[in-house]
């Protein structure tokens, strides 16, 4: 099977079969990163542009390493170094980049739908590395990979996603991705952080964290942003962490084999207690490792990897 699409824009547009293909490919890619010589020639001669309108060290580094491990040439552009500051539109910037014949454009943008706009205009494959509050498909895929690896399967597991659901593209993409793969998703957070109509994604919603975690196989904590206080979403970090922070005490009611995830970067002592983040249930660093494998798989698949890379 091949990936039959040009772009990776969101989890809605991927079929369950395509998700499985990506995860299977990522499983194979993971081994490359464990070799002493962490490089294969698969994408030699290919150019990957990492176009980051929104600062992100983690995701950009992950894509950069993924490209380099496959021998692609990668180039990073950030909003401050690009002509965006001079008033060029996204479409113009995209066309200029395309004129240099890249093989893949990875984009992160503060505006929902920006990768879709770019994908419509360009012939090159576009991978969404996060657009506003909308989607973060590569994060969702690495989360699916990590859960599958630890639980053997995704179907039938119950995952609780806890925090500021309203502003989280990770929550949206995982709600779509996990339900598509047969998992139950429960979202939890204060009423101010649950967006209207989210239940139409076939998820359940609670404002009570204890209720969300008691029968969860996986607990995913979301980063809380201090700036949200200005928008009256919560009164203080102190109260937030008391009610919605993940602590050992709250974990007492969780399943014995529960897994704890976090898309990072974490606020220790706020949404997740210091010792819980490093505790026995945490698979947070495994997520980071798998992030490289998933991004290698995607770069490989969108460039038509199966056809081009026989023999590697």
């Amino acid at each position: 099977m091949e990936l039959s699409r040009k772009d990776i824009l969101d989890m809605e547009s991927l079929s369950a079969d395509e998700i499985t293909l990506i995860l299977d490919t990522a499983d194979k890619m993971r081994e490359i990163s464990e070799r002493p010589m962490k490089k294969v020639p698969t994408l030699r001669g290919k150019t990957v542009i990492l176009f980051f309108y929104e600062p992100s060290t983690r995701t950009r580094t992950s894509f950069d390493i993924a490209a380099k491990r496959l021998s692609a040439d990668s180039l990073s552009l950030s909003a401050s170094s690009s002509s965006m500051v001079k008033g060029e539109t996204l479409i113009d910037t995209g066309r200029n980049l395309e004129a240099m014949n890249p093989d893949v454009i990875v984009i992160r943008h503060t505006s929902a739908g920006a990768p879709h706009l770019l994908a419509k205009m360009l012939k090159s494959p576009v991978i969404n590395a996060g657009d506003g509050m909308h989607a973060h498909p590569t994060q969702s895929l690495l989360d699916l990979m990590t859960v599958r690896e630890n639980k053997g399967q995704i179907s039938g597991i119950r995952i609780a996603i806890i925090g500021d659901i309203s502003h989280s593209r990770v929550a949206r993409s995982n709600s779509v991705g996990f339900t598509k793969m047969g998992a139950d998703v429960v979202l939890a957070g204060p009423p101010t952080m649950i967006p209207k109509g989210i239940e139409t994604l076939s998820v359940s919603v609670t404002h009570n964290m204890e209720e969300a975690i008691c029968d969860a196989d996986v607990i995913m904590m979301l980063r809380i942003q201090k700036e949200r206080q200005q928008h009256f979403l919560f009164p203080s970090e102190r109260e937030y962490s008391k009610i919605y922070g993940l602590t050992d005490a709250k974990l007492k009611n969780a399943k014995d084999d529960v897994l704890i995830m976090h898309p990072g970067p974490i606020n220790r002592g706020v949404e997740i207690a210091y010792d819980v983040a490093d505790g026995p249930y945490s698979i947070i660093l495994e997520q980071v490792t798998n992030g490289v494998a998933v991004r290698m798989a995607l770069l490989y698949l969108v460039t038509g990897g199966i056809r081009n890379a026989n023999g590697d």
Partner: protein
Amino acid sequence: MLTVIKGGRVIDPGNLDDILDIVIEDGNIVEIKQGALADDENKESKIIDASGKIVAPGLIDMHVHLRDPGYEYKETIETGSRAAAFGGFTAICCMPNTNPVNDSRQVTEYIIKKAVKADIVRVYPVAAISKGLKGESLCEYGELKDAGAVALSDDGNPVMNSQLMRRALEYSSRFNLTVISHCEDFDLVSDGAMNEGAVATKMGLSGIPNAAESIMVLRDISLCELTGVPVHIAHVSTRESVRAIRDAKKRGVPVTAETAPHYFSLTDASVKDYNTNSKMNPPLRTEQDIEAICQGLVDGTIDVIATDHAPHSIIEKAVEFDQAANGIIGLETAVPLGLKLVETGIIDITDLIEKMSKNPARILGLKNGLEIGKTADITIIDPEISYCIDANRFQSLSRNTPFDGWDVKGKAVLTMVGGKIVYQYTT
């Protein structure tokens, strides 16, 4: 020379509805009767065959943005006037959010001068409620009235300061200037880019709740009651606003209201794929809101259909959704979209003419109507022509419409202003 509009169904709501001929001389209606031609055979006359068509008093769009002065690449007074004529409007009211803002005699006079020079449709300037649309101080309403303004609005912005709104109502009443309120609570809207709900949530866009509009509608109704001065509510988009206005009217509060064709034709689902031509303020709502707006049109809660014609170039629209400008053009699609309400039996053709001609004239104190002695501002509508909307053929300078490619039925086929034909449809 005489002009005779022959054999059409002449509808002047509450006054006329019959197959009649209208005779026009020197820009005025001089005769309305059956078989008018025979009597005037001795004079040389121009005959307009209106058989099978609707002959209505000239349509008035009381909510239009002409972008001139300041943004002439989007629309000018001339191109906007031509778009109006093509859409069947004999008069339009242009909102003051130009650059400079129309808060002075100079800008009001500039608009009138350019409209007279274009010589297409009547253009009535709406001046600002507050200086610079800033919501901080009153404009000189006496001066603006004298210059030719017909109404006041800070459209584009709400008047957030309730005290200023109260005083604007009181002071404006001295000059008989209708106050048009753009109802939007800035704090509730926050960074909202579309209607709040499942569609926005799935698309990762910040939502604008219905209450952001209805809270201000309710406030303005309270101020209307307090002052006794009429308020006209612009572009009603929510069911809560319809309910509030209906209740107020029942109590005898002198509030009037308009909606735009897109608020009874589209839901927020049409924002999908981040289509910026479906982005406007207030945003497209839901089926329930459409239902309430139609009900409001039926029972008279909503007096007027106005387009909120808001031209934008591709520079403002071919961008990220949350950064795209609000607004769509409407002058050249209003008649077929209005006729859809007639076609589906929600309102009848007389109601439609009332809401697109009679009522805006009444609210603004403009002359209007098919009566002997009146100025011949007339729109002829063919309700039967089927066609596909093609934005590339619009007269407007802009193309930002979600209705491009829609199959519709009915259009204005002749627009007459002061006895002069400013637009005539040719196949």
